[in-house]
């Protein structure tokens, strides 16, 4: 847990309109995933998506990468866009 706490200090979230509970969980998940699969963005996004689907219901979408732009339609109160470990950007949102 302490390690996660340390890691948590390394992220910056750019935009989030989740409930506090969900936000906490999603951020922890993102950081853990990014830490676990440091060199494989596909695995990171897969892990995040599958875990979020299990916890908060279906149809979560995840984008992991460096230097991308996007425009998405998301379900209100279900969006998180954050930077993690430097310039790795993670965007997760729900859209059923």
């Amino acid at each position: 847990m302490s390690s996660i706490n340390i890691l948590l200090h390394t992220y910056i979230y750019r935009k989030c309109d989740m409930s506090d509970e969900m936000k906490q969980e999603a951020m922890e998940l993102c950081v853990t995933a990014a830490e676990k699969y440091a060199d494989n963005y596909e695995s990171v996004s897969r892990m995040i998506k599958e875990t979020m689907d299990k916890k908060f219901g279906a149809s979560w979408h995840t984008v992991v990468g460096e230097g991308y732009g996007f425009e998405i339609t998301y379900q209100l109160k279900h969006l998180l866009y954050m930077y993690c470990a430097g310039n790795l950007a993670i965007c997760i949102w729900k859209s059923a």
Partner: protein
Amino acid sequence: MRPSVTKRTPSKVTELSKELPRHISFVKSRVDVGGGDMDWLRGKVFLKPEDQLQLSEAELQEEIARVLTIHNTRVPDSLVEWSWKLKNFILLPPPPHLVTVLNVPGSLLHKDSEEAKIQLTGGLVVDTPFEEAIVHDDEEERGEEEEEEADIEEPEEMADHKEPEPEPEHEHEHEDEEEIEKIKPKKIPNQFNFCERAALTYTNPMREMSTQTIPPPTGIFNTHEDFAQQQREKEKERRLPVLQLKKEDVKKKAQIESTALTYRMLQAAKTLERMINQNIFDEIAQDYRYWDDPSDEFKVGEGSLLPLWKFNYEKTKKHDVTNLCFNSRYYDLFAVSYGTMSFSNLITNGTVCLFSLKNPSYPEWICPTESPVMCLDFNEQHPHLLVIVLIYNFFNDEGTMDGAVAVYNIMLPPTAPQYRSNDVVQKHGGIVWEVCLSQIKIFKIHWAPDTEEGNLAFYSVSIDGKINYWILSENDLALTTVMTLFLDRPPIPGPDGTMITLKGCGTCLAFHPANQNIFLVGTEEGTIYKCNTAYSSVYMRTYNEAHNMPVYRIVFNKFNSSIFASCSGDWRIKIWEDDRMEPLFMFDLGIPIGDVQWAPYSSTVLACVSNDGKVTVFDLNINKYRPICSQQIVSRKKYKLTRLAFNNKLPFIIVGDDNNILIFYENRGTVNTLKLSPNLRLKVKPTKKQLHLTHRELEIMKLERLLSFVREPAILQPPKDTRVET
């Protein structure tokens, strides 16, 4: 009752079949009737019932006539009924003859029948006909009556038809009906296309019901702005160094522009130069292309050489022409290497020039080198590549001379070679040779076919007795020593008790035109070795004492690859056949011969240059003993000729010169162009039978014919030495 019935009504067949015995008896009686005719039945014994009447012959012969009547004996003819009204029995009418057992009305109709017509018009079929029929069946009399009625009606209808005038309306109606008939030829329903309504089930009607929930509230989020911002930041970062570099860029740009401008100026100047040259040397240019010596017609077996342009370059007037080479692609382009032939010369630099016949006054491409150039060769597949051998470190600290090779791309400006052998490791020679204080110079190079990886490669032979194989990889030259020419002599004692195996000093190299593995090496000792690149230590053949002096050149015949010629400092040209130790021809010119070449157009013509400044041309087909042309080209007192090259397309040769004696004439290093007169370039005239043969085949045949004369004797008597005067 039955027997009586049978007797009375023998016509009832059904009844008779049931009553078999009676029938038989009946039959028998019939047989008996016609007994006289039945002779073929004789011998048959008829089974007779025991109680059969025994009739006398007369009785049997008696004819009994039988009469068929319409009277039905089974119908009671006198039925009576008690009538209470009359208080008396009254006679009933006889019962009908027909008994209906089963009545199934059919639904088939004849198409032409009335009923069918009504159906076709779309009218409803009235059931009455059926009923009528049934009634008719049931009650014959009534039916008959009705039939009569119908019969009566029909004429009425007919009457109606017959009288259309009094009732036009009726007629009109009828027409209407007919029209409808024509318009709607309705399909008659049958069991396949008609389904009774009663047999059908209900089809349930479809209804649509749907509901929609309110979608969860959504929002749109994008990072375009973020991305754009990032891009802007990045651009800013980029711009900063760009701005710094801008001043340099401007300078560079100006430089590029100026070089482009000068390049275009150069192009224009070059064109102009060529035009001027063409005007100045117009007569020579005409001769070069069109003039043939008319006196050749009257001279048999003799020809002449017409001097054309002289090529020289001011800065190389002190140099010797060390090698000449035509380009394989552009026949008017040739390369000349300038260096020195003698090692006592104090020249320390060299030049490689590319001349074009279009511009005899100035080289197209000049490459000054820091040391004398020994030889050069164009690559045939890649005519832009030129390999050059440099003699490095001319008399270096230990007084040695080192050789190196370099490859130039003549499409690039001649500032630096594309490849150059590594000075330290790859130079010909090395420690051993430095100790021996020997001279190393590479005499001959030969482009090898490209390696399997597509890299270029070439061979070189040098005075240190090594034949090296060079491969041009991407960045550097890789070196493999294919062979070292050791002499067949016992080792001699060297300093400090070491034994040294003597090496031959390679001076010339010729690769077999057909088999690229086989090559010939001539040495300073006068020996010719036939070698194979596959074996590095064994000679395939050794021509010991082929010459008594250094072999200067070995050339394979252009048409027959088993014939080769060699020339040497021992005044002789020898023509050899592969696998034959003795030469086929031998010519002694009485002066060292610098170079010999086979003509590309004929299999029997070869030309050589000698130290007395003469070009000598032989045509073995015309004269096997004497040259057909020997002409002084340069002053024998001042110059000697060193190298010779045939043009592959046009009948001219180029010869390079050198000073003859140790006095340095300033005007050396000239390349002379000489045109061959018609007698020197005689080609085979095909006979009528040979018309289908190509020129090449004819040339090969000519050479073969010539060789068959000289092959037979084991030892060829050398011709008497004669001095050929011009």
